């Protein structure tokens, strides 16, 4: 329990910084939205196009003149921000002990290694949830003046749920890397590589139908904003896949950390 609170305190500043980034990004984004909100010219352009074409390009999902469409675009960027923060916290929270030469101290405390991992994981989880809460809150504040309908709130809730799952996937993978990497310095750079790699995969898989299978490898593609908006559901295959990744990473983390030879 002490470790948990200690970690929360140590990461509080980082949470604040991320919170400010998210709030700033949200404010700038919605400031731009004012120019597009029910902009008659853009609406005219959209209305003038054949519906088949709109559907072909998913433009219905990304109709920037409506608040839902705009948020559908924003959610991709939120996903990127939140997963960077999650993977950073995850990979850092364990490996930083070795970097800062505090690992001898923390491992001589009368607690098992597994409970150290648990406490740290929980602390990182609380941070991630707090950041998601900040994202959610600021979005609610930003949209309130447009008085969106029921549909939007449903979309927002689903979107946040999807973001949460992606966050936890990256957090778990980050923690696993922090526990498993022999050289503590490698943990966060590998995490960065992984994050970039999956982000690139998500871009490639969108380019061609032949490459769509790649989306199974990229959490960024697990939850399609268009589907969240129009069908109001989350693809269950990907929920299970995410749960699988999370479970495997956490088990891997406990196993490798309990056997870990420490760098002092």
């Amino acid at each position: 329990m002490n470790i948990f609170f200690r970690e929360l305190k140590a990461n509080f500043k980082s949470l604040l910084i991320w919170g400010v980034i998210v709030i700033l990004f949200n404010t700038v984004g919605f400031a731009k939205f004012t120019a597009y909100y029910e902009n008659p010219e853009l609406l005219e352009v959209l209305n003038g196009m054949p519906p088949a074409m709109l559907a072909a390009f998913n433009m219905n999902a990304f109709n920037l003149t409506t608040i839902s469409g705009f948020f559908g675009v924003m959610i991709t960027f939120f996903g990127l921000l939140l997963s960077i923060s999650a993977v950073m916290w995850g990979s850092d929270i364990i490996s930083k002990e070795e970097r800062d030469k505090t690992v001898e101290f923390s491992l001589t405390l009368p607690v098992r290694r597994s409970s150290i991992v648990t406490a740290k994981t929980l602390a990182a989880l609380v941070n991630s949830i707090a950041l998601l809460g900040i994202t959610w809150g600021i979005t609610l504040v930003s949209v309130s003046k447009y008085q969106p309908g029921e549909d939007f709130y449903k979309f927002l809730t689903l979107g946040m749920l999807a973001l949460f799952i992606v966050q936890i996937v990256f957090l778990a993978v980050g923690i696993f890397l922090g526990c498993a990497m022999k050289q503590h310095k490698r943990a966060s750079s590998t995490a960065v590589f992984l994050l970039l790699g999956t982000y690139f995969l998500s871009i490639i898989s969108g380019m061609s139908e032949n490459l769509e299978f790649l989306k199974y490898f990229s959490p960024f593609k697990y939850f399609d904003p268009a589907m969240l908006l129009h069908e109001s559901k989350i693809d269950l295959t990907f929920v299970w896949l995410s749960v699988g990744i999370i479970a495997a990473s956490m088990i891997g983390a406990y196993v490798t950390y309990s056997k870990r030879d420490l760098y002092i």
Partner: protein
Amino acid sequence: MNIYKHEFKMKINSVIAWSLAVGLMIFIYLSIFSSIEIDAKLFNEMMASFPEEFLIAFGMTDIDMSTILGFFGLIFLFIQIGLAIQAANYGFSLVSVEETDLTADFLLAKPVGRTKIMTSKLLAAITGLTITNLVVWISSFVFLRMYSDGGQFETKPVLVLMLSIAIFQLFFLTVGMLISLLVKRVRSVPPYSMALVFGLYVLNAFGGMIGEDKLEILSPFKHFEPNYILKHAAYDLPLAWISVVVIVISIIGSYVLYSRKNIRSAV
């Protein structure tokens, strides 16, 4: 010279890893070009029927996915992200690594001035980045030739684009270095470099998507936008100058700050 050699030796593994990753990325992206080519022709036809304002709003004006260069412009952005992270990593760790690894005492006790230490380190980092740069050059030309129709493509725009890489890398290297000297202590490098690179990337991507806002002129992703360069075979000069000015200021600032910095002792 010894510092330079040592620094370079420390970096060489990372340079090789990054070069391979970037080369591989170019290969993968260009090799899928043929499979998306057919879709792309359709895509372009439809795009042509959209009104101009609409394309501007979505930032899709300069994209022509049916030619290999148009496609290359799209993917080069991701190569830029990779290069930027590498350069930012080197920049942030350049002098701060001595403090994190508690080797600053050792290094600064050597009979060399701080300016000289800085210069050697900077040169070593630039050498590393140049190697990666060369790999990008070679793999771009080789794979473009391999995967374009009959090996034909316009060389000049690609050449101009490739020439921009060096400035692009220097931007992140020097800005990273300056920030690492401005903050009290850099504990771990990746959070800083990720924040810098993705911050600037999102700034540009988001600005481009929704138009008007002028914040994105701060971003080198805007200064060296691949689509613009490939289309015009030239830089957007006023913007490119911003990058150069930032680089010069960062280098001068870093030297001044480092020569006065109070280095924390290990003990």
